[in-house]
C-alpha cells in the first residue's frame, strides 16, 4: 500500500516536472519572439524619441546601506535622463548611511512642510541639495519598514511619476529614458515595468557577478521578468517600475506592514483598476534594464527570498481579484494560471516528490538509471531554455559576452536549474509557513 502511495506521488512529481518544462518551453519561445519583435521596433525607430519626457521622482528606501547607497545615487546622477529628482528615505539606519550621504553631497537641513497624502510615520529631519541640476532630498525617519519609507517618499515627491528602488539597484545611463517612453504613447499608461538582472555592463560588454549564486540569480530574474512581463503577469522579483503618482495616491501607496516591493503596489493598483473599470495600460519595457546586486552571503539572499515570497503570498491573498480578471487577454490569463500553479503548488510537490522518489528508489519501485537520464535531460532542457532567453536579451541590447563569461554563464545556469531552484523552493516553502 505504502509503495503504491509513493509510486503515485513520484509519478505526480514527474508529471509536474514534465508539465513545467513544457510550460517554460512555450513561454520561452513566445518570450523570445516578443523580444525579437521589440528589437525590430527599436532598430526601425518605432519609438517616440524625445529630448525630455515627463519629470519623475526616484524614491530610494535605505536601511543600513552604507556599502551601496553612494554608488546608487552616483549612478542616478550619471543617467542621460535629466528631468527627475532623487528622494532618499532613511528608514532608521544605525550605520554610516546618513552621514555618508550628508558629507558626500553637502546637504543642508531644511524645515520643509510635507503634504501627507498618505499616512506614514513621522519624519525627523529633512535635508536638501542640488547636484548637476538634480534635486536630492534626504528624509530621516524612525525604522518602520520599506513600505512606510516609500510612502514618506511619495508624500515628499514633487512630480507626477514615481519610481521606487533600493540602494542595491544600479541603473544604466539610458534605463530611465526607456522606462518613461511609454507614458507619451497613451494617457492610460499607469505602470511601466523594466527588466531586472544581476551583473554589470561596461562598454557594451556584459560580465556576470562574482558570487556564484548571483550568477544563478541573473538567469532567474531575466527569465521571470521576460516570461511574466510580456503577458501582463506580476513577477515575484524586485523590479524597476514607474508608477503614475495620482494612481499611487488613490490606492494610498504601499500597505502598512507589506514588505515594500513594487509587485505589491502593482497588484494593489491592478485590483483597484479592475474594480473601478476605465482604461488602464500596464507596459513592460524590455530595454529598461536595472541591475540588482546582492551581498555574497547566501544566508542574506535566502532571507531576502523568503521575505519576498511572504510579501507575494500576502498580496495575492489580499488582492485575489487580479488573478481572475476577466478583462485580461486569453494569453495573459493562461500565463497567470500557469505561473500561479507553479508559484503556489510546485514547491510542495517538489519537496514531497523528492522524498517519494528517494523512497521509490530505495525500494526498487522506480529504476534508478532511466530516471537519472530523464533528470539529466530535464536539467539540460531547462538550462538551454534559460540560457537561450538570456542570450535573446543580450541581443536586444547589442551586448557582447567574452568567451570566459560564456563559460561562467554555463556554470551559472547549471546552478540556477539545480541548486538555486531547490533553494528557492525551500524559501517559498518556509515563507508560506511564516506567512
Amino acid at each position, binding site marked *: 500500500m505504502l509503495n503504491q502511495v509513493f509510486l503515485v506521488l513520484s509519478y505526480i512529481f514527474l508529471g509536474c516536472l514534465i508539465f513545467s518544462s513544457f510550460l517554460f518551453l512555450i513561454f520561452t519561445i513566445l518570450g523570445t519572439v516578443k523580444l525579437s519583435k521589440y528589437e525590430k521596433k527599436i532598430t526601425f525607430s518605432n519609438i517616440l524619441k524625445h529630448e525630455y519626457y515627463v519629470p519623475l521622482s526616484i524614491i530610494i528606501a535605505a536601511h543600513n546601506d552604507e556599502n551601496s547607497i553612494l554608488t546608487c545615487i552616483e549612478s542616478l546622477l550619471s543617467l542621460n535622463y535629466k528631468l527627475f529628482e532623487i528622494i532618499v528615505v532613511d528608514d532608521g539606519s544605525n550605520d554610516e548611511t546618513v552621514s555618508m550621504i550628508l558629507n558626500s553631497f553637502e546637504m543642508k537641513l531644511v524645515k520643509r512642510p510635507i503634504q501627507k497624502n498618505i499616512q506614514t510615520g513621522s519624519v525627523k529631519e529633512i535635508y536638501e541639495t542640488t547636484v548637476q541640476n538634480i534635486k536630492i532630498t534626504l528624509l530621516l525617519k524612525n525604522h518602520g519598514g520599506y513600505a512606510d519609507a516609500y510612502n514618506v517618499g511619495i508624500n515628499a515627491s514633487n512630480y507626477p511619476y514615481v519610481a521606487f528602488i533600493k540602494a542595491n539597484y544600479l541603473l544604466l545611463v539610458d534605463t530611465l529614458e526607456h522606462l518613461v517612453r511609454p507614458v507619451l504613447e497613451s494617457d492610460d499608461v499607469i505602470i511601466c515595468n523594466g527588466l531586472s538582472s544581476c551583473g554589470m555592463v561596461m562598454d557594451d560588454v556584459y560580465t556576470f557577478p562574482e558570487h556564484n549564486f548571483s550568477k544563478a540569480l541573473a538567469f532567474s530574474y531575466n527569465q521571470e521578468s521576460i516570461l511574466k512581463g510580456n503577458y501582463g503577469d506580476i513577477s515575484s522579483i524586485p523590479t524597476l517600475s514607474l508608477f503614475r503618482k495620482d494612481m499611487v495616491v488613490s490606492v494610498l501607496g504601499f500597505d502598512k506592514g507589506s514588505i515594500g516591493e513594487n509587485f505589491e503596489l502593482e497588484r494593489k493598483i491592478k485590483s483597484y483598476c479592475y474594480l473601478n473599470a476605465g482604461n488602464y495600460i500596464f507596459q513592460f519595457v524590455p530595454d529598461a534594464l536595472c541591475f540588482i546586486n546582492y551581498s555574497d552571503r547566501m544566508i542574506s539572499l535566502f532571507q531576502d527570498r523568503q521575505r519576498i515570497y511572504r510579501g507575494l503570498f500576502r498580496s495575492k491573498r489580499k488582492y485575489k481579484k487580479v488573478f481572475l480578471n476577466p478583462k485580461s487577454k486569453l494569453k495573459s490569463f493562461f500565463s497567470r494560471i500557469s505561473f500561479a500553479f507553479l508559484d503556489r503548488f510546485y514547491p510542495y510537490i517538489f519537496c514531497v516528490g523528492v522524498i517519494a522518489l528517494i523512497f521509490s528508489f530505495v525500494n526498487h519501485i522506480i529504476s534508478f538509471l532511466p530516471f537519472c*537520464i530523464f533528470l539529466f535531460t530535464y536539467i539540460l532542457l531547462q538550462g538551454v531554455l534559460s540560457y537561450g532567453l538570456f542570450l535573446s536579451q543580450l541581443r536586444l541590447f547589442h551586448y557582447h559576452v567574452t568567451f570566459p563569461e560564456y563559460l561562467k554563464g554555463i556554470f551559472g545556469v547549471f546552478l540556477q536549474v539545480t541548486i538555486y531552484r531547490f533553494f528557492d523552493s525551500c524559501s517559498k516553502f518556509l515563507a508560506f509557513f511564516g506567512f
Partner: protein
Amino acid sequence: MNYFYVIIFIYLSIIILFVLFHIGISIYGKISKFFSLKKKKKYKRLISNSLFDLKEVKYVSEEDINFLKKKLKRIHNLYIFEDVLSDFFSKNPTLVLEYCKNVSGVFHYLSGIYREKSSLQKAYFTHVLSLFPDIIQDDDNSIHYAMMHFVFDSSIHCRENAMLFFYHKGSYKQVVNSLKKINHRDLYYSPKLMSDDLLEFRGDKLKLTSLLLADYDDFSYPFQIAIINFIRLSDGDRRKEIFHKLLSHKYHKEVELAMIRYFATHYFVDIIELFLKILNDHDTYNFEYRLVTAFSLGNYDSPVVHQALIKCLTDENFYVRKNAAVSLSQMSLTNEEVKQIMGLKDSYAKEMFTYIWPSLEEESTGVKKKGVEVPC
C-alpha cells in the same frame, strides 16, 4: 518505463533544436552584419558618385534613381541608405540636401509602396522622410496627400514621424490640416508631445500660431492645451487674444489653466484683476485655479498682488500655499509685509514661507528679492 524514454527523446530533440536555433541566429547575425557592411559600402559608392554627378552635371543619373526605386522597397535597404546618407549629411549638408531634391521621385514612388506595408515599416519610412524633408518638393501635392495617409495610421509612431515630417518641412497648411484631422478622428496625440513637436516647426512659428488660433475652437481640449503651451514656449506674443479667451470662460478647465500659466512668463497688466478675482472667489474657481494663479503671479510685483498672495499663504490647500510662498519670495517685499507674514497665526503659512525663504527667520526685518524655481 517506455514513457521515460519517449520523454527523454522529446527533450533531447528540443534541446538540439534550441541549440541549433541559437547557433543559427548567431551565424545569421554575423552573416547579416557582413552583408550589411558590404551593402553599406555599395550604397556609399552609389551616393558618392551621385553627389559627384550633382557637382559636375547638376543631376543624378537615371540609372541610380532606378536602382534606388528597386532596392529601397525593402526596409533593410532603406535602413542602410538612411545610415549612409546621414553620414554624408554630417560632412556636406548642402550637397546632400540638393541630392535629396533630385531623388524626390524615388520617395514619391516609395510612398505608394510603403503605404501598403506594415505599421512598423510605415513608421520607419516616415522617420526617414522626417530626417530629410527636402526629399519631398514643396509643390508636390500628391505626396503631401500620400503623407496624410501615414498621419492617420493606427501606429502612434507612424503618426508622430509623419507629423515630424510636416514640422521639419515647415508646411503650414499640412500641419494645421493634419492636426485638425487627427483631432477629428479622435486619434491619440499627447499634448506634451504635440507642443514639443510644434516647437520643431522649421517655418515661421508666428504664422503657424496665427493659423492655429484662427481655428482654435475647432480643436478638442488636449489640442487646445498643446497649442497654448506651444505659444508660451515659442515666446509667441498673443497676450490680448489669450486674455479674451480666458475671459470668455467657455473653455475646458485644463485649457484655462494652461492659459493662466501662459501669463506667468508673458507679463500682461490687464490680467492682474482676473488673477485677483480667481484667488478670492473660491466658489467659482477651485483650488487648481488658485494654485496655478498663485504660481503665475510671481512676475507681477505690486502691493495689491503681495496682499493677495499673503492671503493665499493661509489657503486650505497645501499647494496653493506653496506656490504663493514661491511667488512672494521672487518679489520685493517691504518690512511691514515681511512682519505681516511672520505675524500670521497660521503655522502652515509661516512654515511654507520660511522653507522657501530660509534666511527670513534670522532676518525678520530684511527685504530681499530672491528667485526660487518650484514646479506647480
